[in-house]
């Protein structure tokens, strides 16, 4: 059974169909990429999956359970977390506080108003582990606002990872990261534990083809091609779409 499945997913903004009849299946443990040219509806799809937008039609199932009507935070509790294309961080908190917040929330002390953050060993151990995994140890005391962009990008993923999702949605994780910091970021993404399923929404073809085992191509709000990377790479229709875009960009 796929960990995530959409059935006839559709989103309409007035007269525009931003997503139509999207039938996406992500297998457990997969490294799955969702690609497509600009304006193909990738962000709309991720917003539908995470509950930021309500679909106009169709269903979303997480591990066989219908989550179409659930609120974003409820989906997180069921094991789906996401990152954002544009950083959505808590700028006046430090990475330590931000990650501590997520871990406390998940371990159910989010409503605990008397105990101080960091007095539970389970929480601090896990924060420490995440800080290490995402190479944030040397900046963990700095306010997030002043971190280098690459570190902010790592924190962006760390916050989602701290939700301990079984399905992690990465929305263009490498976008805008300068070359010098890129390697650390890509290595961290590659080293994500195998039991976490990753759905990657990406523009960067190098990252997609080095990372993904399966690729879905979205064009004009509809799934266009779905298959293994080499199949997709060979597919003349995909080439046409991307080549067409490049030709248009060059002209």
């Amino acid at each position, binding site marked *: 059974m796929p960990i995530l499945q959409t059935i006839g997913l559709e989103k309409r903004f007035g007269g525009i169909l931003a997503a139509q009849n999207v039938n996406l299946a992500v297998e457990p443990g997969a490294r799955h990429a969702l690609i497509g040219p600009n304006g193909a509806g990738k962000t709309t799809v991720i917003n539908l999956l*995470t509950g*930021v937008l309500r679909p106009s039609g169709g269903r979303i199932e997480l591990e066989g359970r219908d989550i179409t009507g659930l*609120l*974003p*935070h409820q989906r*997180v*509790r069921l094991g789906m*977390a*996401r990152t*954002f294309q544009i950083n*959505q*961080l*808590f*700028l*006046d*908190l430090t990475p*330590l*506080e*931000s990650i*501590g*917040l*997520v871990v*406390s*929330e*998940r371990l159910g*002390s*989010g*409503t*605990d*108003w*008397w*105990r*101080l*953050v*960091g*007095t539970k*060993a389970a929480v*601090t*151990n896990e*924060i*420490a*582990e995440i*800080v*290490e995994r995402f190479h944030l*140890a*040397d*900046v*963990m*005391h700095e306010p997030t606002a002043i971190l280098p962009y690459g570190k902010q990008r790592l924190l962006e993923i760390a*916050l*989602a990872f*701290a*939700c301990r999702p079984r399905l992690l949605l990465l929305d263009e994780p490498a976008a805008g990261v300068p070359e010098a910091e890129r390697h650390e970021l890509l290595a961290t993404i590659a080293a994500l534990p195998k039991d976490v399923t990753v759905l990657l929404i990406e523009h960067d073809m190098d990252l997609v083809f080095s990372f993904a085992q399966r690729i879905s191509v979205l064009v004009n709000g509809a799934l266009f091609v779905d298959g293994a990377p080499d199949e997709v790479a060979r597919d003349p229709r995909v080439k046409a779409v991307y080549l067409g875009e490049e030709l248009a960009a060059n002209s």
Partner: protein
Amino acid sequence: MNTRADDVALYLKRRARWSPFEIAFWIFAFATIWLFPGKYLILKDTAILALFALSLDLILGYAGIISLGQAAFFGLAGYFSGLVAKYGLITEPVIALICAGVVAAALGFVTSFLVLRGSDLTRLMVTLGVSLMLGELANRYSNITGGADGLQGVEIEPIFGRFRFDLFGHNGYVYCLVVLFICFVMARRIIYSPFGLSLRSIKGNTLRASAIGIPVKWRLVSIYTVAAGFAGIAGALLTQTTAFCSLDVFSLERSADLLLVLIIGGTGYLYGGLIGAVIYKFLQDWIANLTPQYWQFWIGLVLVVIVLIGRERMAGWIRTLRAVLARLGARLGPRSPALGSAGTEGH
């Protein structure tokens, strides 16, 4: 790995530690009981205003909810505590105070759903509307509230049956100060708890807060309710220490003053309301002595100056001052060496 976890625990605990500045602040606050025996009246009013401002800071400074209607809770609890004392329903002041806080919190809970949606402007209007409505209800049911004449014939029994509210206001002031301190400690615990952290995250980035599994709506409802309770306790303190309650507890001016206090003192660090209340009250007192009729002109001028200089810059000065003090403190009394390596010295 273990040492990293220790680092993390140490740092997280350290951020909630009472700083020398805070300890000095409270020592001075309690010392005023002996330092200024002739000033109990204004000191008491300051303590009440500080508690009231603390309630607004909890929602404005930590959850980003702006309000022009905290007076609704202040007034409701004020009348509640006056009525229960007048009719002998709850005679012990501390119990009455707690009950008044609970009543105000209940109103806060009910009205919190109105402020969840919408922008700052709608929140201002909705909160203002609620307090106007309550004020008008109190006016309409003058057979209960005494209407424009105020609630007469309130007699407050001694605290715990022992400490009488004396004429000089000594016990009244001590009572207010102790209640302020207890409420402050509670607010401080809230701020440094996971719950408080989640509030700051909601204020910082609501979209992300919900994307990491925080039920934003219920957190806002919770803090609005708690803050209403604090505002209610402040209102009840006023009634209990004056043995009187009038319609102006609901006035717009009271809520607006509160915003002034927070503008003067700054939001989001708990002491803003306290420091703001002290400055506001003593400025008011001082100017009123100089020019009894035109004191509001000078308050207005101070406000304009503060806005022109910018709160950010003033906060910056305070931060610099604090950093200097912290450095001095670190030099005078070396704390555990482990803290140094876990802290900012590492890079």
